[in-house]
């Protein structure tokens, strides 16, 4: 029974961390059809900004929830102005340019911070479930994922800004004719996506080692979750995260974490073969 509870918490945690890791990419890809291969590096920057903030004495929670998103959001605005803006509509070129950006960011951070692992210890300690102990931070991750999903839904469906953003993504010229500048909407959307990636990096900093190359571990997972999700941003994100997260965690329980990861990737390839439009291309059509 205790084991069942622990397994359940771990599966929830795997799903939640996939939601968090992929949210930024989902917003940028889902809304703008821009494949941001520098997503992992945005997360890495988020993690580093948490470490930098801690060094100057900022509270850990402030560092994670305020400093990391803002810092990476600003980086996102700058990169959007300099690079991404010139490549809208050229999907393959955007992929290549953002891959270049990802190498560039890794290089810059390596030059500045050195190629060493920095760590943040996980706060909140742990609590016990029967004979097992579960880290309290796990529950924070799960809670944040739920709040994040609700927040994305709220912003997109209930606010003026969400309406404008969705309208612009569907028909940029019509939005332009109605007096909205699409380039500003793109800019803000990219910044929000980048900020979400920064938040993800900050949140995961206490759980993983922080190295300049840490982004590579997340990019593929985030990428397949978003693509596997299909056209509906939020439903796709949650659906794909649930499917892949559960497969990953259950396979990890049966074998090793490495095979858990491999099972996730294999499941994704098989799924893309069966449902080339992603989960929401077949089910939950028309949802958000």
């Amino acid at each position, binding site marked *: 029974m205790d084991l069942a509870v622990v397994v359940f918490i771990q599966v929830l945690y795997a799903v939640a961390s996939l939601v968090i890791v992929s949210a930024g990419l989902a917003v940028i890809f889902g809304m703008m059809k821009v*494949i941001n291969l520098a997503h992992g590096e945005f997360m890495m920057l988020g993690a580093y900004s948490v470490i930098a903030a801690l060094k100057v004495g900022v509270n850990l929670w402030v560092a994670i929830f305020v400093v990391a998103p803002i810092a990476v959001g600003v980086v996102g605005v700058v990169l959007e102005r300099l*690079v991404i803006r*010139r*490549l809208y509509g050229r*999907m*393959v*070129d955007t*992929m*290549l*340019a953002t*891959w*270049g*950006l*990802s*190498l*560039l*960011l*890794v*290089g*810059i951070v*390596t*030059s500045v911070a050195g190629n060493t692992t920095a760590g943040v210890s996980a706060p909140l300690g742990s609590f016990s479930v029967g004979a097992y102990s579960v880290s309290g931070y796990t529950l924070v991750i799960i809670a944040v994922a739920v709040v994040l999903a609700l927040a994305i839904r709220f912003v997109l469906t209930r606010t003026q800004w969400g309406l404008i953003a969705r309208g612009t993504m569907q028909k940029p010229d019509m939005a332009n004719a109605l007096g909205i500048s699409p380039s500003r909407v793109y800019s803000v959307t990219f910044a929000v996506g980048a900020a979400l990636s920064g938040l993800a990096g900050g949140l995961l900093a206490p759980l993983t080692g922080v190295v300049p190359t840490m982004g*590579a571990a997340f*990019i*593929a997972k985030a*990428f*397949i979750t978003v*693509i596997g999700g299909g056209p509906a941003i939020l439903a796709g994100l949650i659906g794909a995260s649930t499917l892949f997260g559960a497969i990953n965690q259950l396979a990890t329980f049966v074998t*090793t974490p*490495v095979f858990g*990861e*491999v099972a996730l*990737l*294999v499941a*994704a*390839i098989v799924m*893309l*073969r069966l449902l*080339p439009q992603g989960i929401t291309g077949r089910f939950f059509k028309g949802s958000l």
Partner: protein
Amino acid sequence: MNRFAKSWTSAALSLAIGLVLLVGLPGVLDDYTLIEVTIYAVMSILGVSLAFIWGFGGILCFGQAAFFGLGAYVYAIAVMNMGDSTVPFLLAIVVPALFAALLGYVIFYGRLSDVYMGVITLTVTLILFNLINSTAGPEWRIGSAPLGGFNGIPAIPTLNLPGLPDEVLTPKDLFYVTFSCLLLVYLGLRVLISSKIGRVIIAAKENEQRVLLLGYDARAYKLFSFTVGGAIAGLAGCLFANWGAFTSPTIFGLAQSAQIIIWVIVGGLGTLVGPIVGCVAIQWLTSQIGTQQTLNSNLVLGAILVVFVLLVPRGIVPSIGDLIDKAWRRLRGSKSSEATP
């Protein structure tokens, strides 16, 4: 496309330069430099494999390194078990080709688009990396070859003359073999591209719908070019394992795949010589960066990729090719004015 680049004169010129280098270099260079040149040739073969499937087949593969790594590992494992290197050499080409065929079948016959192609090839590369990386224990072995996990496989036996396991190639022989392979691959692809099959492959890149309507199964042609690309990358992997007598999981890594793409972008998409030029230039640059501390090679490579995508999207060789082309047309025009409409 350029007239000059398409003409057989350019192919003959490239081959002539190649042959001169093949014969001349061992006489001019000392052994150390010759070994350096060998690795440039190995990487050039890898670059050409992507240049073919991307520039002519229109297939952007983010995981060309997967076939390269597979070739290296297959050769290493097979040669350690068999002793004689003839069959392992062939296996190192056939196994990646079969793997590419399987993967290509899933992608092309599933009618997945560009983006999915990128995701799937990237994912497959990571799967291989994760799997091989985790096989460090002594219990992971195939026959008598330990897989070595993140430590890689050291002391891989070098190629020997077919059937004579004791006649092992010297570094100079390896140079001849590698460079000849590069020239043969180049020649083979040039012939393939100008054949009927090659024309359909290029046509399918330009307009898949129209090719389908003309009665060609575009999927089959894409699958074919992808398989050929996998075989060539496997060959490069085998030669790489020979060059350093060592292979490790990092050759499956994202950094390796990114490098191949950078070679092709910098050299010029849609040419075969371009990626060789790009490969040599970038390899030389990274080795120069490695000698000093201020600039990080990732930083420089990333900057190069971004700058080329934004400012020189056609790459070096086609830009130079335009200049040659003007001169070429003038030459042709003076000889026979009716030939150029």
